[in-house]
């Protein structure tokens, strides 16, 4: 992985912990933290403490599934104060290029260093289906804009930034199972060309199909230009596995995982919900550990992105079980005032 292009100035593009871990050649682990549908900072702090030490950085979702939540930047600052490095997610659904750039300046000034550029789920999925969506830029154009702010010291319009430019480690998402399947590596290539430094994939359960995707990615040489973190998530129950298999667009959950989750509850009294849930969760974590280990074997995979939303406790045992604990020490990014106090 060290043949990635050398960065400018201080040797790093952003100086984030995630960037340093990846640049040092470690197999990276990112987690995910979903902000609450209220203004309670304690919820973020509590989740951040669960993830701290178990991952190198954690994504802070941006109105995930189009449901209004505490802002990604606001929650990200709280996480940073707890010592957890955030990856700020930003969707194109809710903001135009003016709002995005001003938020990016603000986020950088507050000490945030990783930014994941996303299209965003359609608002019809969420709790404000009558909203107007923005999509002034698409995710590829957002990546281009964030790279321009950093590398050209220029706003999207071309005006120069006079003063400090925001230097983010730029992330993109990839869904290896979205259609058209054959074109997904090309789309990833567009994101790389636009300036993505790392990529996190959609949840992967169909490892074989993901391996096919990676083969195409390697043929295009993309794994040498961008760090690819494979998405892994623990299944909570057979119901969740079925729902993800049948209802979630862009997810591919093979039947044998549904069967394994169902089998995990066999022999336990149906009335003993607690024991059944625990058995399901144990199996879910076991499957996730296996998936992480399989991902590590795939050439070009630089890390895993563990998505355990509303089950942050699961990340640590997965990371431990996969032999990825403790996480490597790197000199943390220079932090802004609030973080230094935190």
């Amino acid at each position: 992985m060290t043949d990635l292009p050398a960065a400018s100035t201080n040797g790093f593009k952003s100086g984030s912990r995630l960037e340093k871990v990846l640049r040092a050649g470690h197999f990276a682990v990112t987690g995910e933290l979903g902000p609450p549908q209220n203004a309670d900072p304690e919820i973020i702090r509590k989740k951040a403490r669960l993830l701290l030490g178990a991952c190198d950085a954690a994504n802070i979702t941006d109105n995930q599934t189009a449901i209004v939540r505490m802002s990604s930047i606001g929650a990200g600052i709280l996480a940073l104060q707890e010592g957890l490095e955030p990856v700020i997610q930003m969707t194109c659904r809710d903001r135009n290029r003016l709002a995005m750039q001003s938020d990016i300046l603000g986020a950088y000034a507050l000490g945030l260093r990783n930014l994941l550029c996303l299209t965003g789920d359609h608002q019809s999925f969420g709790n404000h289906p009558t909203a107007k969506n923005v999509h002034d830029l698409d995710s590829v154009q957002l990546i281009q804009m964030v790279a321009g702010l950093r590398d050209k010291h220029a706003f999207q319009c071309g005006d120069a930034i006079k003063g400090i430019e925001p230097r983010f480690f730029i992330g993109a998402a990839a869904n290896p199972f979205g259609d058209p399947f054959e074109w997904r590596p090309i789309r990833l290539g567009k994101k790389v060309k636009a300036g993505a430094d790392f990529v996190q994939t959609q949840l992967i359960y169909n490892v074989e199909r993901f391996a096919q995707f990676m083969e195409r990615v390697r043929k295009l040489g993309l794994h040498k230009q961008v760090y690819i973190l494979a998405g892994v998530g623990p299944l909570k129950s057979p119901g969740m596995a079925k729902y993800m298999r049948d209802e979630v667009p862009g997810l591919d959950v093979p039947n044998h995982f549904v069967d394994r989750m169902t089998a995990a509850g066999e022999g336990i009294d149906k009335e003993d919900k607690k024991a059944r849930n625990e058995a399901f969760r144990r199996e879910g974590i076991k499957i996730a550990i296996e998936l992480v280990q399989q991902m590590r074997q795939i050439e070009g995979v630089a890390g895993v992105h563990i998505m355990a939303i509303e089950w942050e406790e699961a990340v640590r045992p997965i990371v431990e079980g996969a032999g990825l604990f403790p996480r490597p020490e790197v000199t943390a990014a220079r932090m802004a005032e609030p973080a230094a106090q935190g």
Partner: protein
Amino acid sequence: MIVAEQKPLDEIKGLLGEAQTVLVVGCGTCVTVCFAGGDKEAGILASSLRMASRIDGTPKDVTHITVQRQCEVEYIDPLADSIRQADVVLSIGCGIGVQALAERYPDKVVLPGLNTSFLGLPSEQGVWEERCAACGSCILGVTGGICPIARCAKQLLNGPCGGSQGGVCEIGHETPCAWQLIYDRLNAQGRLHLIEELQPAKDWSTSRDGGPRRITREDLRLAAEAAE
């Protein structure tokens, strides 16, 4: 063409309120072709309103008339007499027709009887689909003749989002993913390179975002002046 559909009768009744004499004005162009506001629909709507008002115990005098094109002054000029006699005008032209009548007859209350929906085409009997969002800067040349502005739920310009599955858009079971269509057509034509290029941020100033739009053709203005 412009595709529209009739508002629910109750909403129209609410809009009409206490008005006694109502003139329903149909249009012979797009809304005739999409069976929303042609002469036939104007007649049916007028009689439904008459009947409903009788049932409600406050009978209204509702008549109807249809012009070839509601969006041009020459066609709506001859309506002056009929419009004078009506308390309100209920247009079942598109939103442009409603506004043309309101501009030409500024003293009259002109009400909309349709919801103007989109620019599209009939895809099969009884089904109309959106095709263009009038963005003012057409990119069909690089997207295989399929418009991602009007037909992708997120107006994406660089390929499909992660929610595209089995040819269907993530928003629902009957909406084709525009980017799957674009991919399929360009693939069949051997022109996929067109969408491999980065499509830069779109200039939306030619679209509605730039404010109300206007086109001035000096050549035509000069020709008109010369003819006078």
